[in-house]
């Protein structure tokens, strides 16, 4: 009897401890109003329904999920405002790209379009390993089509993409319409009048030293349609956003752009803070870099373009700036294009030191253009006429490009070494990292995808400011001389006294003589 009592007691004890433990489990947590019993029940039910793999390893995650799942049961009576997601915004912007105008739809197929063959270029760029991704390329080309239609451009192509710190630029190159003129006005004429007014006020006092600084003469811009401004460039941040036309570039901007090194931010109105100070904001700097990159890296297979009709003598010094598509171009085999750089030529004019493609002689003053006298006389009269700057003529092969920083300026490769009969020849610039050109058969294309900075070798050193100018011309009244020493002063004084004494004697003698005469 005792034994059964004991087991009963023990069983009861166990039941009691179990009940108290269960009560403990059911006790709600003070913080979250949950209790462990319910939580464990739900967790085990979840494991039962889901049968996860390696359940013991992921049990903590499941526990956290169960806890998290409880919170969504509370529904607030407020409805969330439907927020336009970024996807919707982008879709709105880009749906205009996908709409077709109702009229000209059928006519376009017959007339030669100003757009290049979009899908073909995209495919070839992919082969070359350079592309931006198919979806983006398609959108970009649709945006180009929109640009062409809205601006009625005769010809347009994708120039490339310039990366920036906050957003990027997609750049399109276009031929400008005929008859378009530059609408910008120079603001250089205003300050001179102010200086003259200030000078008249100071004439009462001693004339203050005037500044003899004359700024060097401004090199004139090239006309739209020639030289550096041959093409017009449009940029947008993303396909679908409106295109912005970049202003034409001036030689001063190119000269300074060569001396500074800056990233782009993605906003066209950012000021460029640099030394030497850049005359313009980011839009101008972007245009200047585009001009430099085009001049340095736009290449084509030799023979694709031929020189325009030559006018006059061949001794004409102005470099030819026109070229035409050669109708007899046969295409160069791709393997040959890869092996030697002489099969590629530049088809954009080189930019001279001055910042233009055609040299301008700034020292010629109006009124002295007396070319009627013999040429030999003219040369003698102007001994310091600067030498005209000459650049390599158009359509020079790449094999004549200078080597910089111990590295060849271009690297070439085939897109595929295994199927070379269908491969694309790819040329990569080492001076402007990001500039590529490909050629296959009779087609070629250039593109730039990069940060917009040139390879600068070991390090970039910003230019040193010029020496401070002399504030005043050195003359006798300003130059310091040594003060006379005491002995010298005494000597001078004695000499003066002697002179005075001598003079007085002479005067006395004269007076005496006069008195004597009077007598």
């Amino acid at each position, binding site marked *: 009897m005792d034994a059964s009592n004991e087991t009963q007691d023990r069983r009861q004890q166990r039941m009691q401890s179990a009940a108290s433990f269960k009560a403990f489990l059911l006790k709600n947590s003070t913080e979250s109003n949950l209790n462990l019993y319910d939580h464990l029940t739900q967790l085990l039910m979840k494991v039962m329904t889901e049968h996860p793999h390696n359940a013991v390893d992921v049990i903590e995650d499941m526990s956290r999920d169960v806890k998290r799942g409880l919170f969504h049961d509370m529904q607030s009576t407020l409805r969330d405002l439907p927020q336009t997601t970024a996807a919707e915004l982008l879709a709105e912007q880009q749906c205009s790209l996908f709409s077709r105008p109702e009229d000209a739809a059928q006519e376009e197929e017959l007339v030669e379009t100003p757009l290049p063959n979009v899908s073909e270029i995209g495919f070839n760029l992919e082969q070359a390993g350079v592309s931006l991704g198919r979806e983006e390329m398609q959108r970009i080309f649709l945006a180009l089509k929109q640009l062409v239609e809205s601006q009625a451009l005769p010809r347009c192509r994708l120039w490339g993409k310039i990366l920036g710190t906050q957003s990027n630029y997609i750049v399109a190159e276009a031929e400008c319409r005929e008859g378009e003129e530059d609408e910008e006005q120079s603001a250089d004429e205003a300050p001179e009048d102010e200086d003259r007014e200030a000078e008249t006020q100071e004439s009462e006092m001693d004339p203050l030293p005037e500044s003899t600084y004359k700024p060097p003469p401004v090199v004139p811009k090239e006309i739209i349609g020639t030289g550096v401004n041959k093409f017009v460039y449009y940029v947008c941040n993303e396909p679908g956003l409106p295109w912005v036309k970049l202003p034409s570039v001036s030689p001063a901007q190119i000269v300074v752009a060569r001396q500074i090194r800056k990233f782009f931010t993605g906003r066209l109105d950012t000021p460029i803070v640099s030394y030497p100070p850049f005359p313009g904001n980011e839009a101008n700097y972007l245009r200047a870099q585009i001009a430099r990159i085009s001049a340095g890296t736009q290449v084509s297979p030799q023979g694709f373009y031929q020189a325009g009709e030559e006018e006059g003598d061949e001794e004409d010094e102005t470099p030819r700036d026109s070229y035409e598509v050669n109708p007899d171009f046969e295409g160069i085999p791709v393997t040959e294009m890869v092996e030697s750089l002489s099969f590629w030529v530049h088809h954009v004019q080189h930019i001279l030191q001055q910042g233009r493609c055609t040299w301008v002689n700034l020292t010629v003053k109006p009124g002295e253009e007396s070319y009627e006298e013999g040429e030999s006389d003219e040369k003698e009269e102007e001994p310091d006429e600067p030498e005209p700057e000459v650049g390599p003529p158009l359509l020079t092969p790449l094999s004549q490009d200078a080597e910089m920083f111990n590295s*060849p300026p271009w*690297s070439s490769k085939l897109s595929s070494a295994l199927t070379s009969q269908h491969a694309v020849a790819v040329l990569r610039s080492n001076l402007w990292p990001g500039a590529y050109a490909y050629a296959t058969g009779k087609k070629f294309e250039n593109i730039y995808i990069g940060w917009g900075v040139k390879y600068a070798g070991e390090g970039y050193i910003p230019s040193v400011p010029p020496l401070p100018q002399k504030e005043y011309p050195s003359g006798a009244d300003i130059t310091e001389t040594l003060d006379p020493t005491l002995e010298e002063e005494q000597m001078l004084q004695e000499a003066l006294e002697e002179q005075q004494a001598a003079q007085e004697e002479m005067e006395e003698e004269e007076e005496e003589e006069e008195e004597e005469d009077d007598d």
Partner: protein
Amino acid sequence: VPLQRGSIWSLQVLLEQDFWLIIEEISDFNCMDWLLLPAATDSMISEVSKAARGRFIGDPSFVYERAEVNRKSEDRVIPAASVFQNKVKEETRLSVTVHQIDQEVSVVPRGSFIRNHQGLVLVNRSFTGLSESESRKLDSFLHFREAKNPKQRSVLQNPAVDFLEVLSDDIPKGSWSVQCEFASRVCVLRSLLWLGLTFYHLPGTPQHGYVYMGDGTKNLDLPFML
């Protein structure tokens, strides 16, 4: 060693041959021949910094030479014996460069790795990605390397997650470019210090990764360019 085993890098070099690297220090040039790169050590790093200049050549057995003159001698006449020739092979330089890039600009989103109480760094399997607004801020991305100056910034930090340094503490400020493309479906970070390092993350998903495609030179002009 990070999650991205098998992530492919590529270094573009001078001549036709480009390098392709996989994160376990293997290199090759045309995806056909693979060599094992030696792991970078401190002595190798100092060797490379003395000898190698300019761009990569493209040939792993190329030897860089640079004469360094011993300046401790005060005489004008420098005896020939104290002119050191620092020689470094290109594969050493390559491995050191890879190591440096990893140390300086490898990026992971916040929350993708957890450190447990023993100090082990583990992949966080319940990482569901950053939200869209978080992925626009540089604060949500961390360097994936041993923290050199860990800072406690706010009480909200979770020590299991915030044991790495934040990208926004990088000097100079602005050396990262954050962009959200494709309707915020992808968030792209580009390093301006090592031009060509690109990190991507798809907000809302645990996918992330980084790739280096460039010429293997550090952009020391960065302060001038910002």
